[in-house]
């Protein structure tokens, strides 16, 4: 009798916790969706100097009128690449090096910096960078 009751209580308790767990996971998913939906595009002025400029999690490489807009997140472990040495971009966390247009030169990273989609808003004179999908 005791054993059966204990077994029943274990199952009930487990079920209750599992239910709460499902709500909990759903809550996390909801938070993540909201964060993604509320992520605004990034705006940068269009008259950036030529060469490389750093803007938090975005790197802009300008060559005359052409732009290459890349994520500043190192493809090794996601650190922000924010240092330039000569003609190379250097990740401060573990030393990966990239060329000015984001191609990986020296490890430990093995992939190029991700290119971001952007458009030029000539009316407002700014670059609009869409958040990554």
């Amino acid at each position, binding site marked *: 009798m005791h054993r059966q009751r204990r077994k029943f209580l274990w199952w009930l308790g487990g079920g209750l916790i599992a239910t709460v767990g499902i709500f909990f*996971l759903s809550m*996390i*998913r909801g*938070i*993540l969706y909201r*964060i993604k939906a509320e992520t605004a595009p990034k705006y940068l002025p269009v008259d950036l100097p030529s060469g490389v400029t*750093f803007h938090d999690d975005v790197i802009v490489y300008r060559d005359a009128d052409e732009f290459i807009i890349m994520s500043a*997140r190192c493809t*090794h*472990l*996601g*650190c*922000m690449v*924010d*240092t*330039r*040495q000569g003609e190379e971009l*250097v990740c*401060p*966390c*573990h*030393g990966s090096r990239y060329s000015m247009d984001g191609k990986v030169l020296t*490890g*430990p*990273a*093995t992939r190029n910096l991700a290119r971001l989609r952007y458009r030029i808003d000539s009316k407002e004179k700014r670059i609009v960078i869409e958040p990554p999908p």
Partner: protein
Amino acid sequence: MSHPPNESPSLMRRFFNSWSIILPLPGLLSHAAMFIVIGSGIALALAYDVNKPYDALQVMILSNPGATFIRGIHYWSSQFFLVLTGLHFADQLSRNGEREITPGSWLQLCLVVPTLIFLMISGFILKGDRSGILAREVLDGLLGVVPIGTSILKFLFLGSSHTLQVVYLHHVATATLVLLVLTLRHGERVWPEPRSIIYVLGFSMVLAAVFTPGLNAEASGVHVRGPWYFVGLQEILHWTSRPIWVVVLGMAGFVFLFVLPFVPKGCSRKIKCTILACLIVYLSLIVIGIFFRGTNWELIWPLANS
């Protein structure tokens, strides 16, 4: 029994025997350190603002000597806690203490290791300066090697990238509670002994006064180093393009630690020696990372580092 009566004590045992002449055993000291960290952390939380952590710390350091001192105690006692916990593990493993408790208790004690590591790194992240932010990115990257449920896992541990709220929550509440639950059950006492408190608090106060912990100033462009105990990991990550192996290696280390009571003594001794050897290698990597690395990850001679 720590060793057969006819064998001479190992180097480790002799070290801890000498230790206990002057100081309380590492376990008692680390127990005291834990309480001092928690106490000073609660006090520090009154001056801390998770919405603008970097600014709050700057104001503390520049205009609030009391807060600066409390922060110093919190910092140094946490360093003591880390080192003394490590020494406590070494002490217990050297006398085969893992065989004297139940497997469940041993598992809980092994779980102290990742909990403590998370507490240390989350505290470093909570500085909110450049090195703290980058440490968050690295941890985020390491969690990203898990193939399933990555975004949920990252959110659970680190929260969203715009705020340190979740990291703060885990640092002050979740991980602290887990640590307390895991550790308080196995010891002989709940509250630390007064002698240990005096030692740890005393030394923390002296160090807090003489070596006040600072804050990273430069916004970009200079080589950034994590906390000293993670510099070795930084070196390892510099050499490998596949961080998943670092995670796998870490987990393997945990498994080897856990299986120690269940394998024959000879095998257990070999595993312990391997763990010690790995620790020595890791300490050497820390020395290289601190003294032989310059700007932009170039190798330099020490003292050339400005």
